[in-house]
C-alpha cells in the first residue's frame, strides 16, 4: 500500500532522469515517499530500490543515516526545538520545558491525537535569531515560551495550514527542467570529451544586446 503512487512514480522517474547515476536520486525519492505517506515504510524503501537499481538494504542504510527520514509515524506537525549553543545560551531549555508541558509529552514522542511530535534538534542555521524552532522545517525565530504556546494553539486550530504543510512535505515547489532546455544527464563514461565551450574561445559576442 505504501509503495509510490503512479503520480509519484512519474515524478520519481523525472527526478532519476536528472542524474548521471540513478542511485543519486535515493534521497529525493525518500523525501517523495515521506511526502506521500508521512513517514518511510519498508514497502517504499523496497520500491525505491527497484526504481534506482539498489538493494533494499542499501536504501535502508541511506535512509537511516538521515534524521529527517522517520521510520515510524510522526505527528502532522514535527516541532524541532534547537538546543545547540546559541539557542542554549538564550533559553532553549526553557522553551523545551514549556513545549513538553504544553503538549504533555516528552521530547522524542508524539501526542495522543497524532498532531504533534516534539524533538530536540541540533543547529537550524538561525543562530542570530535564538532561540529558534522549526515546525515541519519552517523556522520560527526568537521564540518565547508564551509565543510557543500561541503557536501550538494556532497549529491546532489550523490557522497555519496555508503556510505549513503536513509533515513529509518540505519544499512545496519542485524543480522541473523543461525538456527543450535540458542538457540531460549522461553517464560519466559516455561523456569523456571536454565541453565545447572550453576550446572555442568567447561564447558570445561582447556586443550582443541584452
Amino acid at each position: 500500500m505504501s509503495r509510490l503512487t503512479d503520480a509519484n512514480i512519474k515524478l520519481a522517474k523525472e527526478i532519476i532522469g536528472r542524474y548521471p547515476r540513478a542511485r543519486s536520486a535515493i534521497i529525493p525519492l525518500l523525501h517523495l515517499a515521506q511526502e506521500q505517506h508521512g513517514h518511510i515504510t519498508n514497502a517504499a524503501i523496497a520500491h525505491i530500490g527497484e526504481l534506482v537499481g539498489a538493494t533494499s538494504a542499501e536504501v535502508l542504510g541511506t535512509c537511516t543515516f538521515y534524521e529527517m527520514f522517520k521510520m515510524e509515524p510522526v505527528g502532522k506537525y514535527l516541532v524541532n526545538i534547537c538546543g545547540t549553543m546559541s539557542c542554549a545560551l538564550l533559553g532553549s531549555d526553557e522553551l523545551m520545558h514549556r513545549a513538553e508541558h504544553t503538549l504533555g509529552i516528552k521530547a522524542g514522542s508524539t501526542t495522543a491525537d497524532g498532531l504533534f511530535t516534539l524533538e530536540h534538534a541540533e543547529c537550524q542555521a538561525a543562530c542570530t535569531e535564538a532561540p529558534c524552532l522549526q515546525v515541519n522545517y519552517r523556522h520560527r525565530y526568537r521564540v518565547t515560551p508564551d509565543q510557543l504556546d500561541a503557536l501550538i494553539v494556532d497549529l491546532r486550530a489550523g490557522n497555519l495550514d496555508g503556510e505549513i504543510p503536513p509533515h513529509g512535505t518540505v519544499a512545496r515547489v519542485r524543480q522541473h527542467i523543461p525538456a527543450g532546455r535540458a542538457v540531460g544527464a549522461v553517464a560519466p563514461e559516455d561523456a569523456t570529451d571536454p565541453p565545447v565551450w572550453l576550446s572555442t574561445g568567447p561564447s558570445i559576442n561582447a556586443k550582443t544586446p541584452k
Partner: protein
Amino acid sequence: MSESLTGTIMPHAPGFIAGDRPRIVTSRFEYEDSYTLERYLATDGYSGLRACLTRAAADVHNEVKTATVLGRGGAGFPAGVKWGLTPQGKFPRYLVVNGDESEPGTYKDRLLMERDPHQLIEGCLIACYAAGLSQCFLYIRGEMALAQERVATALNDAYAAGYVGTNILGSNFSVDIVLHWGAGAYVVGEETALIESLEGNRGMPRLKPPFFPAAIGLYGQPTIVNNVETLANLPWLLVNGAAAYTAIGTESSPGTRMVAVSGHVRRPGVYEIVNGTTTFRDLVYGNEFCGGIRNGNELKAFVPGGGSAPWFLPDQLDLPFEGKLVGAAGSMLGSGAIMVMDDTTDIPAAALTLTRFYAHESCGKCTPCREGGTWLERILSRIVAGNGTDADLDQLLEVGESICPGSFPHAASERLGLTAVPFPYKMTTICFVGPSAFAPIHSALTLFRDEFIAKIVKRTLIPVTAAPIAAASAAGGGQ
C-alpha cells in the same frame, strides 16, 4: 544600552543587518522581492554571466584566480586555485554546490539562498563556464524548506528565461543545474561526505588523499565543491573585475565576508563585513554591529569561527577577522560564525551543547569519533549534572588525546598566564567532526577549569542558561 545602534534591519531578511559598508553578496537584500527573476534582472542580474560568456573560459578562470576568492565554507582555500586542481584532460567534471550549511553559529548561506537565489545560480554558471564543468548539483540542506522553494522557483524561472540549460544566452555554453536536497546530517557539509550523499549513499566522508574531489569526486570524476557564499561572489566579480574585488579587504583576505554573530550580544545578526580588517571587538562592541554585551554584562568568552573552533577570551578581541592571524592565536575562522558568552554563562554546560552536537552528528565511520565523541559527551553530561568525579577531568583530556594526539590549539590568556598554541591540531579521524567534539571541552577545560572543579567538588548547579533577551530586558537585565 545608551549608545544607539546604527545599520538597517530588514524585516524580510531576518537576522541581516546592513550598514555603511561595501556589499558584494547582499546588495539586493533591501528589496522584499529580491529572490525574483524580475528584481534580479532589474538590478544588473545575469550581467556577470553575460560578461563571462564574452571571454574565453581560461580568461574567466584567471580573473577569479587573480581576485583570490577565498572559500567561505570553512577551509578558506582560494576558489580559482581549487578549480585548477582537476586532472588535465579528464572529463566530465562536475560542480557540486555546498548549501548544506549546518555549522553551529553559522547562518549566511541560507540567507543567500532564500534572499538571492539567482545570484547563486549565476555564480554556478560562471564557475561551470570557467572550469569546464558539465553539470551542476546544487545541494541544499534538507531542513531548509524556504531556501529549497526559493532556489527551485529561481531555477525554474532561469531555465524558462534561457539562463540555464542548453545554449545559454544563445552561446555554445550548456549546463544543467540540478537541485538536490539533503535529509538531516551535519557531516554532509564535509565535501567528500556531500559527494557520498549526492551519490545516494550514507554521508560518510572519504579520506583525502586519495579522494580529493578535484581528482576523484562525484561518480569518481573530477568535481569542484564550492560553498554557496563563495559562488555568490562571482557575479559581482565578473561585472566589476578582480581589481575592484581586491580593493576591498586585505591582500590575503580580499572582498567581504558574511559573518553571523550570535549569543549574548545586544544585537545578534548577520553582517557582510570587510574581509581581513574588521576586528572581533568591532563585531562584538561596534554600534554598527552588535553594540556590546547584553544587559551591560561582561564578555566571558567567544567562539570565533563556528562550533568547531577553539574558544577565544576577551584577550583576543583586537584580532582582525583574518585566517592566518586567528590561526596563530589558537583558533580558526571557519564558516564565519561568532558565538558570544557573557559572564553569566555556565561554561561546562555551554561546552556540552557543542560536544553533544558533534557526538550526535558523528557519521560513525572512524572509531575515535564514533566512540570517543559519545564518551566525551557522557562524561561531560555527568559533570554538568553534578555527578562528575575527579578522574573525569583527566579522562576528558585522555579521550581527547585519542582523537587529537599532541597539543591542542588554544588561546593565550593573561589571567591564566597561558600562551597560545596555534592552529591546526593533529587528528586520528578522517574529518573534523571528531576533533570538533573535543574542541569545546578542551577550550572550556583549559580556560575555565575552575568551573569544572566547582561542579565536581561542590556539586553546585549553576543555571544552564540565562533568559532570552526580551525576558531579560523586561526584568531589568541580569540573572
